């Protein structure tokens, strides 16, 4: 039997890659290898519905397409190394697998704070097991919660913790406003106000230097010496790419796997990267390779990479248009939603209110060179619909540089 396409990583990106390989006409064997014991599941509810106890695992599991009923799933198994010249990967159960093509879909893991103090009581949110553990801690009566990192996951977890009835919820971040990095000051200020009005406290412009406690965390030490009492700490301070297993193959693994405009890695036609581990140039914008952790990216990357790979495996010479997805993301916090289309981070120096105001529904436009490159809505579904009306215009955006 011919060697399979090996998909390293059996989460959303891996599943979509397998499905899209079939959709692109690849009929040969496919093997997916994933370190979690579960079939692929949807992660956004982990910081919201799962933490709140409103979603079962069954409701999170993806329904794989019928076309991938014949693929082999090796779950609870990890790829530990790869020899790309010999087209071989080694697994943590001691086995090796030869491949016809390799799909890198190993994703990210949470970055951890390295300052001194006990580990017990400190949580991250990436997997179902993480979310279940955090829920058990958050639902104890009178719990005091400190969330380190005011990004998307941190703000979502803080909102959920307040709704669960935590006694105190404080978000710590070195920046002066929540989510200021990706969204800028205008949205950051509006978000801060809304979170505070719903009971979230903030310690902004503050770094964490350590954790108090003997065995279990009892407090978070800030760089001005303040100690925030804490029974539960959530670390939401970014993520680290799972690429160590690719070391020694000459790939650029500085931040994820660097790919070309067709998501191929290291100039190899038989190796592609998909999902948030892929650092790819987006032909719609400036061509600078970036990793993108939006929920839409596993599906977008899988579709393009699978077409490229299926053509390669079929002996064809495809010249498809370069990968140029329209980024989109959302975040549900308290009773409001953030909805974005385009690339607001590229237009942070020129942010304008398109509709509404800071206290009601708000639609902000992000511009570069005077041109709209992204919109972000904050508020109810009406605001999100207003953002969607700009989607067609954003889709017309040609590359900013040739």
């Amino acid at each position: 039997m011919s060697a399979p396409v090996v998909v390293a990583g059996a989460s959303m990106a891996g599943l979509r890659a397998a499905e899209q390989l079939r959709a692109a006409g690849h009929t040969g064997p496919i093997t997916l290898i994933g370190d979690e014991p579960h079939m692929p599941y949807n992660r956004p509810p982990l910081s919201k519905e799962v933490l709140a106890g409103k979603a079962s695992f069954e409701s999170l599991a993806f329904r794989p397409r019928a076309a991938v009923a014949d693929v082999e799933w090796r779950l609870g198994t990890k790829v530990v190394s790869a020899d790309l010249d010999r087209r071989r990967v080694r697994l943590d159960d001691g086995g090796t697998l030869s491949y016809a093509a390799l799909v890198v879909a190993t994703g990210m893991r949470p970055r951890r704070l390295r300052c001194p103090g006990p580990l017990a009581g400190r949580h991250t949110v990436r997997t179902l097991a993480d979310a279940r553990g955090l829920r058990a801690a958050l639902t104890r009566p009178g719990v005091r919660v400190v969330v380190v990192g005011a990004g998307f996951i941190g703000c979502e977890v803080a909102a959920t913790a307040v709704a669960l009835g935590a006694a105190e919820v404080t978000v710590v971040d070195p920046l002066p406003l929540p989510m200021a990095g990706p969204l800028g000051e205008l949205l950051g200020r509006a978000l801060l106000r809304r979170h505070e009005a719903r009971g979230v406290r903030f310690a902004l412009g503050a770094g964490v230097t350590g954790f108090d406690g003997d065995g279990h965390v009892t407090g978070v030490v800030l760089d001005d010496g303040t100690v925030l009492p804490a029974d539960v700490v959530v670390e939401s301070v970014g993520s680290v790419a799972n690429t160590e297993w690719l070391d020694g193959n000459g790939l650029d693994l500085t931040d994820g796997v660097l790919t070309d405009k067709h998501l191929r890695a290291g100039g190899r036609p038989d190796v592609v990267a998909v999902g948030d581990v892929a650092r790819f140039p987006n032909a719609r914008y400036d061509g600078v390779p970036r990793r993108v952790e939006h929920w839409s990216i596993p599906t977008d990357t899988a579709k393009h990479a699978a077409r490229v790979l299926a053509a390669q495996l079929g002996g064809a010479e495809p010249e498809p248009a370069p990968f140029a997805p329209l980024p989109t993301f959302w975040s549900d916090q308290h009773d409001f939603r953030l909805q974005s289309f385009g690339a607001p981070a590229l237009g942070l120096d020129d942010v304008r209110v398109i509709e509404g105001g800071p206290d009601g529904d708000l639609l902000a436009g992000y511009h570069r060179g005077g041109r709209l490159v992204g919109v972000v809505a904050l508020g109810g579904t009406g605001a999100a619909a207003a953002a969607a009306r700009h989607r067609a215009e954003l889709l017309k955006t040609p590359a900013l540089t040739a």
Partner: protein
Amino acid sequence: MKVVVDMNKCQDHGQCVFAAPDVFRFDEAGRLAYVPDPDDALRDEVEEAADVCPLQAIRIED
């Protein structure tokens, strides 16, 4: 082709409307409306709509 949307899960993200505008739309009240038995020629875009639903609320039953 038979399409079923779990309206208890749907949170009006509208990604399906972008992916398959011939099958999914928002009605005047802003609620999702859809064609439950679209022509099989629309299968690709309906599959795309099911893929991009953040709540994974769209099921295709053959």
